[in-house]
């Protein structure tokens, strides 16, 4: 069975990680910007300005939290994959100790 070189697997992992993180940043930016629009209209109505801002802050915090979670899980998964690739590299490298 022909195997893909570990270096190429690591490169693919790095590329996927970069793509997920860049995609997450772009999606967060887009969502925050889209969500701002109705709040911008609603906060102009004087009696509800304060609660509208409060709701927006809560929603923004939740949005940032969710995207932050996606980034954290991505980095954790990438780190686990790195360890697995390190092990694979050591097992295929005849000069590796042990």
């Amino acid at each position, binding site marked *: 069975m022909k195997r893909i070189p570990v270096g190429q697997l690591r490169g693919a992992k790095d*590329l996927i990680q970069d793509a997920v993180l860049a995609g997450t940043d772009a999606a967060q930016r887009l969502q925050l910007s889209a969500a701002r629009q109705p709040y911008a209209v609603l906060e102009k109505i004087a009696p509800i300005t304060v609660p509208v801002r409060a709701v927006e802050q809560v929603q923004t915090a939740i949005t940032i939290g969710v995207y932050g979670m996606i980034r954290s899980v991505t980095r954790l998964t990438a780190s686990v994959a790195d360890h697995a690739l390190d092990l694979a590299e050591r097992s295929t490298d005849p000069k590796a100790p042990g």
Partner: protein
Amino acid sequence: MNARKDSTDRFTQWTAAGVSILNGAFGDYLVRRNNALAIDMAFMHRGQALLLERDALRAAYPTSDGRLCIFLHGLCCNEASWQFPDEGNIAGQTYGSLLQDEIGITPLFVRYNTGLPIAENGRRLAGVLNALLAAFPVPIREIVLIGHSMGGLVARSACDAARSEASATGLGCTWLPLLAKMFYLGTPHEGADLEKLAHATTAVLDAVPNRITRLIGEILGLRSEGIKDLRAGLGAVEPGAATGLRDDAQSIRHYLVAGTLADDPAHPVSRLLGDGLVRMPEPAGFAEDGQPGAQRVQIGIFPGVHHMALAHDMNVYRQIRDWMTDKADT
């Protein structure tokens, strides 16, 4: 056993093809990020990068007489693009292997990161040719460059780089005086329409005041510098003009090969779309009869041969072989 070997070969080819596509699309990004998928320019022999050392070269090309034919693939491709399709009695052969059998010239296949700027690949090619010249086990007598699509631009760019380096260092160029012929198969000398369209689309999407269209524009803009360089090309091939082929390269002969989608080159589809990706060269864009260098540029049109097929078509091969062996032409 054979079925297993075939599936292993196919797996290796698919993996290499995938990596080459990624390099074409994002090769400059891969280099910037020091990603292990980035391809280093190398001569490939039986699927492996060849060490530019005398013993390795002697083992790879034991019968070489010092005449070399160097093949440069196009965007998002690798040396497998030169292989004839898996059918008929020439399956797996290449222009290189056929030329070796028929006229004894030694074929070398380059693999490179097509996402890098064309000028950068040209510099790298000039460098590896110098290294090849220094290490080759027999004296090199003649070099022929055959570029498919972007490969033709890289070949021209290597000539530029070699001349610039020679004039900057005051030393003569080692390999350029040995360059006898350059073949361009479906090369977008004056730019590729698809990249022009992509550039215009990106500009329009960026100008629209909408975050979705801007995001799409940003994603389109991620394409590699190599692809973006195809928008302008390098201009028409004009021996003796400012295309990097002046002075010491006056004697180089240039051969342009173009395909057309329709069987009739005069058909509007052929005129508009050329081989599907690159339009036919305009005769006006090249040296005309009576002008210096006119005999040094020849054009071959191949009706019904699409862009990718130009790298492995029997009629194109025959034309290349005939031009290679044309005594009146040497």
